[in-house]
């Protein structure tokens, strides 16, 4: 279980508070207006931003003091998820061999399988620059598969994709997360994405990241903060 215990995060003047827990393997959307602190919340969980107060725990283990590289977390950023000068095989290989050495035969087979799994079969030797935006997202997801971490954070990695492509990617994330049994926290400012993808929603507004609520229930009876964000009348 991922538990945020009395967490306060400094956002340069304003603060963001969170105090809740979420079960492993769930798909959670982090929804709210821009600037509310959605990415800040993910950064804190990933370890890129220190907490002002509180603790973050995973399965009872305290992550609070750990640097990003020691946390059980993989994260996809808005951009820069792949090294542009390395081939896909090299990029994915880094998930298996963080010391940069070439993977063994078994590793090479796993890379090929991961690429095939996301629909990039045989593209090992391509560089990210020669791929479309959607293909780059797929390659990054293939790496997430290889990283095999129990928490997957998505910081709007598909923001630059068109609606159809984005829906496709969300579908793929769902498959990848299911295969790994990973907890997914996905930042979005699009209520449609949240409804399509997430089992639960964390609403971030007014300095508070609210406890996750079942998606159906949340949209059936939106709280005032969500109603304000969606605009009166809702969606």
């Amino acid at each position, binding site marked *: 279980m991922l538990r945020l215990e009395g967490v306060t995060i400094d956002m340069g003047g304003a603060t963001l508070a969170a105090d809740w827990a979420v079960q492993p393997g769930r798909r959670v959307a982090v929804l709210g207006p821009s600037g509310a602190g959605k990415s800040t919340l993910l950064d804190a969980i*990933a*370890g*890129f931003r220190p907490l002002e107060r509180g603790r973050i725990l995973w399965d009872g283990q305290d992550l609070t003091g750990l*640097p*990003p*590289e020691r946390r059980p*977390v*993989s*994260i996809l*950023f808005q951009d*820069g*998820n792949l*090294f*542009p*000068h*390395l081939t896909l095989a*090299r990029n994915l290989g*880094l*998930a298996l*061999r*963080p*010391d*940069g050495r070439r993977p063994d035969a078994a590793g090479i087979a796993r890379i090929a399988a991961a690429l095939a799994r996301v629909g990039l079969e045989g593209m090992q030797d391509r*560089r990210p*620059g020669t791929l479309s935006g959607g293909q780059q997202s797929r390659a990054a997801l293939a790496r997430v598969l290889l*990283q095999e971490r129990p928490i997957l954070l998505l910081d709007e990695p598909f923001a630059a994709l068109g609606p159809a492509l984005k829906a496709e990617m969300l579908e793929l994330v769902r498959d990848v997360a299911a295969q790994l049994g990973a907890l997914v926290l996905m930042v979005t400012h699009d209520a449609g994405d949240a409804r399509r993808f997430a089992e639960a929603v964390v609403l971030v507004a007014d300095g508070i990241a609210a406890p996750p609520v079942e998606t159906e229930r949340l949209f059936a009876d939106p709280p005032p903060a969500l109603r304000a964000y969606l605009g009166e009348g809702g969606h």
Partner: protein
Amino acid sequence: MAQRTVAVIAATALAALTLGPVAAVLVRAEGLAALGPGDWQALRFTVCQALLSALFACILAVPVARALARRRFAGRGFLIALLGAPFILPVIVAVMGLLAVFGQNGLLNGALSALGLPRLDIYGLHGVVLAHVFFNLPLATRILLQGWLAIPAERLRLAASLGLTPRARFMVLEAPLILRLLPGAFAVIFVICLTSFAVALTLGGGPRATTVELAIYQAVRFDFDLGRAAALALMQLALGLGAGLVAWRLAQGAGFGAGLDRALPLTVAHGRACDTAWLVAAAGFLLLPLGLVVWRGLPGLAQLGPQTWAAAGHSVLLALASTALCLSWTLALAGARGALWSLMAIAISPLVLGTGLFLMLRPFVNPFSMALPVTALVNALMALPFALRIVAPEVEAIRADYGRLRATLRLTPMAWLRLVLLPRLRRPLGFAGGLVAALAMGDLGVIALFADPERATLPLQVYRLMGAYRMEAAAGAALLLLVLSFGLFWAFDRGGRAGAAA
């Protein structure tokens, strides 16, 4: 973290290798009592020639930069690139070129005597200043040109729509710019000229045209008076530190010239003939000596003896060693207060360092046997500020772009260096490596202090051939040096560009 450790080790080594020699000089110098009247004369000459050189370089740079900023013509890009050439041009090669134009048997004196006019003598104060202007006029021009091209196009359009007269335009747009940039350029050039050694060695000399650096060399080589050499080094150190601090404060806005071809400013109708004259004069002043080095050097290439080839071999090895050392330092220190190291290197001149290293080595080994390693080390130190300035911002950018990805992938420091940092730094490292290699290749400083006949570098060999009045062989060796310096720069820079994937 491991990276931190590396940075600390590199910084400690750097501090030890710069402050150690300085300490050796301080200990050995028994006050300023060892200095004779000739040494104080050297101090006066050093300051005086540096002031004159900076003054002429800056004044002449104004019309040249203005012409380059407001005219568009075929070869403009080449001319701007040419302005970068003196930076990697070996001093001794430039001196050969200047002698070919202004020397005893040069073009100018040929023309003068054909007209029945008295001959000019290049040796002495005016020769030293002439050579310094040759090297620093391009630098001042680049600094000014950068400012000129940064004038917002809106302001130029406004001036045009107001119908400002040339005089009003100058007062409103150009004068403030010149007043802002020129003091910094002046200060930087003044400091560079304070540490002038090779120019003074070749074109100055004699009691009335000796710089402090040259006096250090003479005290070590001719008088073997190490106490006096140390006292002179102390003098030079104080001079460099004082002027360096002033320059550092004045030159905040000056930079050293990158990205010179931005948006097209509006060209101006008036003053076209005047601009053309300035551009032709500046291009001639830079190109004629270089062209003559090539022209006069070609026949001399056949006369290159085994000694010259051996010296060339030494120089190439030395340049490569300096480059490797300097780039390793750069990578280790990038991001760790580069400006501080730059300041240190501005203040400490090669001959002060050389004197200190000489004093440190003498109890243990014959310093003359260490000529090449010491020269490689000093050259690496002297080029470090430039390399840091080129590479450090790129390292910062790579860290900003990929630092988080690195963390989430749990990359080891070696993997980060080998797979991310080095491949992505190819271009700036290639460019910086080219500069360092060319600077080390052409350096005629510490090597003169330490060298014995068996361990000459190519610049020193050119100097010796000149001293022996074997002018044709000297011209050939100078051409070889020119080719090797520019060739090294080209090879490194090219290597950085080739295969540098997006």
